[in-house]
């Protein structure tokens, strides 16, 4: 049965690794529902959080292939029951509409939202939660002229991950990661002779 799986990948911070991981999904024609990259709690180790809708057998094989990548330290897959997860959403609405017609205070309270920016012309609300929760606020705000909406990728924490965290910390202490090398020359064309 297909269901939502959240794949957490601990990696080196390497340019090009995002592509290497992404093409493993596209090669099998699997849509990535959401993808987030961020540092992890350990300096030098990065973390991908990828959400896909698939059957477990496919996910298991895929995760093994991901873990096989040279720059990948470890990959896990979890069902929604095994993780705590959140998505962040931003909503831009005309301030006059919202001030006139809606009791802003009530709105914020009911949806656990907060106003990030309040300007004369527009207000930006922010909320975080599961997909259904952030979706609900869209339908509430739409009648009042929702100008823009954006939702972040899922970030997730595995409920039962303390063991791995300890290992990871010891690992990073024993073998610190390498610095990433970026292209330092993109704005140096005048200084480099080329042919």
């Amino acid at each position: 049965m297909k269901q939502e799986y959240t794949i957490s990948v601990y990696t080196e911070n390497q340019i090009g690794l995002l592509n290497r991981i992404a093409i493993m999904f596209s090669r099998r024609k699997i849509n990535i529902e959401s993808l987030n990259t961020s540092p992890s709690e350990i300096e030098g180790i990065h973390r991908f959080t990828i959400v896909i809708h698939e059957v477990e057998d496919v996910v298991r094989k895929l995760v093994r292939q991901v873990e096989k990548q040279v720059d990948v330290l470890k990959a896990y897959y979890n069902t929604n029951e095994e993780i705590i997860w959140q998505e962040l959403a931003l909503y831009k609405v005309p301030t006059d509409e919202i001030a006139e017609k809606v009791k802003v205070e009530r709105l914020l309270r009911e949806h656990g939202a907060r106003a990030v920016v309040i300007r004369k012309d527009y207000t930006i609300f922010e909320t975080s939660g599961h997909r259904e929760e952030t979706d609900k606020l869209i339908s509430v705000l739409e009648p009042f002229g929702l100008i823009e909406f954006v939702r972040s990728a899922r970030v997730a924490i595995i409920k039962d991950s303390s063991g791995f965290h300890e290992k990871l910390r010891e690992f990073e202490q024993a073998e610190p990661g390498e610095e990433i090398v970026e292209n330092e020359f993109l704005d140096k064309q005048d200084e480099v002779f080329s042919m």
Partner: protein
Amino acid sequence: MNSVEAIDIKTVNGKANAEPVTKTISGSIAVLEACIAEGVETIFGYPGGAIMPIYDALYDYREKLEHILVRHEQGATHAAQGYARVSGRTGVVFATSGPGATNLVTGLADAMIDSTPMVCITGQVFAHLLGTDAFQEIDVINITSPVTKWNYQVTDATEIPSVLAKAFYIAGSGRPGPVLIDITKNAQLQQFEYAGYKKCNHIRSYRPTPNIRKEYIEQAAKMINEAERPFVIFGQGVILGKAEKEFKQFIEKGGLPAAWTILGASAIPTSHPLNVGMLGMHGNYGPNVLTNQCDVLIAVGMRFDDRVTGRLDKYARQAKVIHLDIDPAEIDKNVKAAVPVWGNCKDTLPLLTEKLEQKVYPQWLQKFKEHEEKEYEVVINEELNPTTPILSMGEVIRNLNELTNGDAVIVTDVGQHQMVACRYAKFTQSKSNVTSGGLGTMGFALPAAIGAKCGAPERTVVAVIGDGGFQMTIQELGTIMQSKLNVKIMILNNRFLGMVRQWQQLFHEKRYSFVDIESPDFVMVAKGYGIAGKTVNERSELDAALKEMIAHDGAFLLEVMVGKENNVFPMVPQGCGVAEIRLQ
């Protein structure tokens, strides 16, 4: 004298083991120093604009590094593969940016799927030009990501020693594979303080060999000891793991009949009494049929490719599967393993052998014999001793074999001749069969034979090629000419793209759609390259011509005209189970 001494940092300025001493060198020199430190002797390559600094440095290293100038970059990759497959070492390729780099893709993909260790170094435009659509700029890192085990772009020369050390380590360790390093031109030219080359033997995020789990070894041994009809199927893992001896001891102690995938061919001699033949779509009758009758199936260093398994839901459903593999991602990928034995089979096989009971299975082996006799009667006899005057591919391979005593390296292309060569060639030593198995790359054989000859100069190398595949990389005759390589080229010419024609005959009502291929006069073409050649039409001429080819001092092209519409049998039709193999 243009050669230079290897740069030995320890003794630079006459100070041995003093304070860390450095020397100012260019990125290009660092690349060549890395090759020397890694024991590279031969490089296959083609120069161009973005790799010119490396080629300029190579000019002074001619005495230390042999460079084979190919005629197309794809040829360089296949040559590097041939070199790696016969020598067990890493093949090295140099190519320029843009089209030079894109021409590597087929060879990289071939090496990736057939686990061949290879390091490709491509030149790249100056770092400041990246992303500007500069002349011959292509995003080679992203193009090659799916077909490399690892790749990396260098924009700063200081990275070169450590990145190349990583490249060679990754390519050759664990399950081997191709690595591509893209070096921008500024990095090749850049002078930097070189502190010597340090080989890499560890990368923190990379586990080339999984830990061996003792409990699985015990479970596997118990399962084999209790089996009544155990059957071993093995692949290239035995050869890549340099575990031929360990494998032989394993099957001999257990009395285990063993069949091979085409990449596993030659890991044990053809004449070994427990060698029961070839697996797969055009493999032998017994191993295919009896896959579905064994009770324990022991897979060693093979990945259950669909050409081996046929339909998975009809594959060995009755058997308990023990899977030995160095790559954990292969376990349960296609066939579910009852016992996974992770690790290099060079390490795991002896542990398993130790726990095996000394056994023989005369009745079970007899079954393989019975199937072999049936296959001989229906297929093999006619193939080897045709009742028509028209030559068959099988008899050519057999006669070649008798002449070389099975000691030659046989390099095959892709198609009917490949299946026939793998079926009928007799091997006496490992690393004797070089073929494009996973990717099925037509045009592989000629350049791969060039590499094989460089990797095993003391051995006879025979490229067996079809008339179609030969024309895909025919330009490499120029490489053979220029480098004076003693490569024997045998074209089995049936004037058809034979394998596709066979399928069209069997599954498309003989609608021969674009398989009728015309060829030039191959002997004349060879002559243009200064390569001796001959065409054989009659059976009576065959042996003398084969002898002439082998005895000839230098490259030789032998074209043998074979039956136009001969088919390769047995055959497991697509979508069928292995037991549904057809003898005719």
